[in-house]
């Protein structure tokens, strides 16, 4: 295998979530995190899962990642059931989860070293390619603590992209960043998604962020976690989070989200 073939875009995956349920036992009893959730995600689709905390959107992401198992139902990735984590489905977490004992380049190399078929120098070339893609080629030898929050998430993105996965799973990756840094990353992630052709599942509680990034925005409701609505966003790309069109779309979805929360409170009141 050469660097060139390694860097070729792989075909993105089709994901199929079928009737997935997941319960957690807590002190206050059993919490139904997911209740028979079904969702189909097309090849190369950018899908955003939105909902208030406790609606199970992160749980679903972890199940797709293979880090968690469903109590019932199954997740198919290109028709094959997901039984554990796999290199074709890489995850980006809210906390960057970079390893402080390694420098930037070695962090990106971590996953590559576990991928067979590449020599040492080829791996380094691949890692440099992805660091360049996220605009951090000058920081390969930096320590993690020397980077800003936004730079850390860029390294985490490079690390997730490096094994050339078919699916990218992102769990509120920008939630801890300041607004300006976030806006830059919205631009970057859209560009990279178009260049590298991945299926992206993006979890967020920020409706505007979801509308800015997603082809589809899927609305979850909590207790029990269920899918309530599925919005198609066909705004042209690249999208600017500050555009009026985008604001209108997100206002529409925010309204739906509020309705959903209100009806739930009514149910509780009854």
């Amino acid at each position, binding site marked *: 295998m050469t660097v060139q073939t390694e860097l070729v875009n792989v075909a993105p995956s089709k994901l199929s979530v079928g009737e997935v349920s997941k319960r957690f036992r807590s002190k206050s009893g059993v919490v139904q995190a997911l209740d028979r959730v079904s969702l189909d995600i097309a090849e190369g689709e950018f899908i955003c899962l939105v909902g208030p905390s406790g609606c199970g959107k992160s749980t679903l992401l972890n199940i797709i*990642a*293979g*880090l968690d198992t469903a109590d019932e139902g199954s997740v198919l990735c290109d028709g094959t059931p997901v039984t554990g*984590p*796999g*290199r074709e*489905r*890489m*995850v980006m*977490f809210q*906390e960057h*989860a970079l*390893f*402080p*004992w*390694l*420098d930037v380049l070695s962090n990106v190399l*971590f*996953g590559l070293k*576990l*991928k067979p078929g590449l020599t040492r120098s080829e791996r380094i070339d691949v890692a440099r390619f992805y660091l360049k893609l996220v605009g951090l080629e000058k920081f390969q030898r930096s*320590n*993690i*603590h*020397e980077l800003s929050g936004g730079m850390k998430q860029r390294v985490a993105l490079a*690390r997730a992209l490096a*094994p050339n996965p078919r699916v990218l799973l992102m769990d509120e990756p920008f939630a801890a960043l300041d607004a300006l840094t976030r806006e830059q990353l919205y631009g970057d992630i859209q560009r990279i998604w178009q260049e590298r052709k991945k299926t992206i599942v993006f979890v967020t509680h920020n409706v505007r962020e979801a509308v800015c990034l997603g082809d589809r925005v899927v609305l979850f409701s909590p207790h029990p976690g269920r899918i309530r609505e599925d919005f198609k966003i066909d705004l042209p790309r690249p999208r600017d989070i500050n555009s009026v069109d985008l604001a209108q779309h997100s206002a529409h979805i925010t309204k739906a989200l509020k309705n959903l929360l209100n009806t739930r409170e009514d149910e509780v009141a009854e």
Partner: protein
Amino acid sequence: MKRFIYATAFFAVLIVTWEMLVRARVWSPIVLPSPSMVGEYLIAAVADGSLFEASVVTLKRLVLGYLFGIALGLPIGLITARFQVCKDTIGMLALGLQTLPSVCWVPLALLWFGQTESAMFFVVVMGTLWSVVIATETGVRTIPPIYARAARTMGSRGIHTWIHVMLPASLPFVVSGMKQGWAFAWRSLMAAEIYVTILTGFGLGHLLHYGRELHAMEQVTGVMLIIVMIGLLADKVMFSPWERFLHRRWGTQGK
């Protein structure tokens, strides 16, 4: 450079004051000899080779026992961190034995191994082992779970995760545990060497002990000085580079 000058000046003043106090007969040189007397002893002991021989014997015991203690302590620490049942059993044992000064093992060690190197080896291992076990266990338990999760998504499993994630992630704790283990081992070995005669070799502790028997306080003080030097050297050579690396990578304090 400035710091070096300060340090040198401080020790120069200390030694000169000491020398002058002895010469002024503030106390008898039999009680505490002057630096020049200690210096004379050291020169003579270096010349006849006795000091070098004793240092080699002692350091060999220390290094062998210490390395073995680490090699044994790291895996035990990892196992206690991994399995709750091991934490409740081996972990408790380690905690108890860590509070026991390992020189307390000397009577049993002599009975089991006789006046041999094995007895010394055993005492040094007991000094090192438990500190390393406890530090490794604490280190692994304080690792944010997200590291292991992230590693799993990248295809890391089992042994690979332990070697490439858990061990380096717990390094700050492990290094401080190794440092503590070193200190315990060094103290225990000195106590043991002063306490009993080991027939297979005379270490620094014995040299110090004979100084006492002969009322040669310049020998006692000279050997004490060498023991201090070895301790300082070990710190600078073995631990400082690690600590500098940790501070640089983790971004904790330190220059």
